[in-house]
């Protein structure tokens, strides 16, 4: 190795190379970043990487060796913050979903057929699934009619989400049909 480069300086060069790379780099690939007159051997690269690993102690990122080589990656500790890069903007729920949820809230226990009867259209099973996954609705039992359809109702999580202590706090259907929304104290 060239006398003008020590292993700490080499570690920083490797850091710059890895930080500007979009993929992992093998020892061989890293070696190729140096020109022949720099006389950086594979052993030097190895030592440089060891020095780099030490340099990264106490930083937000670490040197990671994978099957395809080396890369710098943020430490698991920072996941909660870093994660937000990948959070997608929440979609909006469809009108069909909100109406289904409203019917389950005000008319529980209610079967899917009953929801369909009021809404006048079929309920997409995906809607019930979404609402279930959100823990807002659950099956309370089964109606004793042919097919034993599930009876849906809302959950404690539903009340929590909407800041309600009980379903009594929902405006009554009478109030809904005779008053405009603004008149209802929300």
């Amino acid at each position, binding site marked *: 190795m060239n006398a003008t480069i020590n292993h700490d300086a080499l570690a920083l060069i490797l850091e*710059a190379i890895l930080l500007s*790379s979009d993929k992992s780099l093998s020892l061989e690939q890293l070696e190729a970043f140096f020109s022949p007159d720099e006389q950086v051997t594979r052993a030097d690269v190895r030592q440089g990487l060891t020095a780099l690993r030490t340099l990264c102690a106490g930083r937000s990122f670490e040197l*990671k060796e994978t099957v395809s080589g080396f890369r710098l990656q943020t430490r698991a500790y920072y996941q909660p913050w870093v994660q937000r890069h990948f959070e997608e903007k*929440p979609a909006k729920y469809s009108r069909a979903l909100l109406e289904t949820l*409203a019917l389950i809230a005000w008319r529980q226990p209610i079967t899917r057929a009953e929801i369909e009867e009021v809404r*006048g259209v079929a309920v997409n099973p995906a809607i019930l699934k979404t609402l279930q996954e959100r823990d807002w609705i659950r099956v*309370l039992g089964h109606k004793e009619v042919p097919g034993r359809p599930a009876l849906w109702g809302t959950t404690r999580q539903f009340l929590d989400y909407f800041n309600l202590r009980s379903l009594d706090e929902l405006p009554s259907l009478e109030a809904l049909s005779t008053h405009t929304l603004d008149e209802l104290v929300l």
Partner: protein
Amino acid sequence: MVLPIVLELTPEASTPLALVWGEPLATLPNDLYIPPDALAVVLEAFEGPLDLLLYLIRRQNLAISDIPIAAITEQYMAYVEVMKVFNLDLAAEYLVMAALLAEIKSRALLPIEATATTEEHDPRMELIKRLKEYERFKKAAQALDDLPRLEREHFTAHAEVERAKQAVLLPEVELRELLLSCQAVMKRAEVSAHHSIRREPLSIRDRMSKVLSALQLNTAVAFEQLFTLDEGRRGVVVTFMAILELLKAHLIEVLPQSTPYAPLMITTVETA
């Protein structure tokens, strides 16, 4: 025709052309093979007539305002002739400039009084102004190129992230939205006449759900256990009505008593 030009033609592209232009142009045989791109390369080194003029002025270490117009015009015309000789697709701008130079040169030969009257349209001053302006931006382009930039001096530092679990942000819903939905769906249902919406106090509906869920957890629940005495008389009534509604809807049933006055056991309806 004066041809002092050919070899040191451009600052950048002289090497490949030396072979072609080793001899004075006038002696070039017509059938000499000229690499078709050669002159194009020369011309590409100039960003137009202003750039070529600047080069000619600079070559003589002159300030723009001191242009010896006659000499420069001759040199400029020589270049244009070269371009023509090689049948180069000469940009019209070069010819326009040639005409302008010729005009300035001929004016210079006129008596001073004749030119003084048209001073505000002095094409020489105009040209000098344009040359200075162009040179300014030639420098600006160089300054821009000298700025440290991404993908050359700097690279965005990037570390990988292990994306173990994807956080999904769920849509937010306001109670107001839910109310609007309920209002909308109810209105639609009322419009279609054959649906009569029974209006029941919500508290009974709520209690029906609670009773059903209590029964979900246990196979059978004592009737008394379904009541919360702390709720007072109204609560008891509501629960009782809820149980009656559920019985009416055949959602729950009362198990047969094993002995008289044994506790009433309530269970969800099981059908085979």
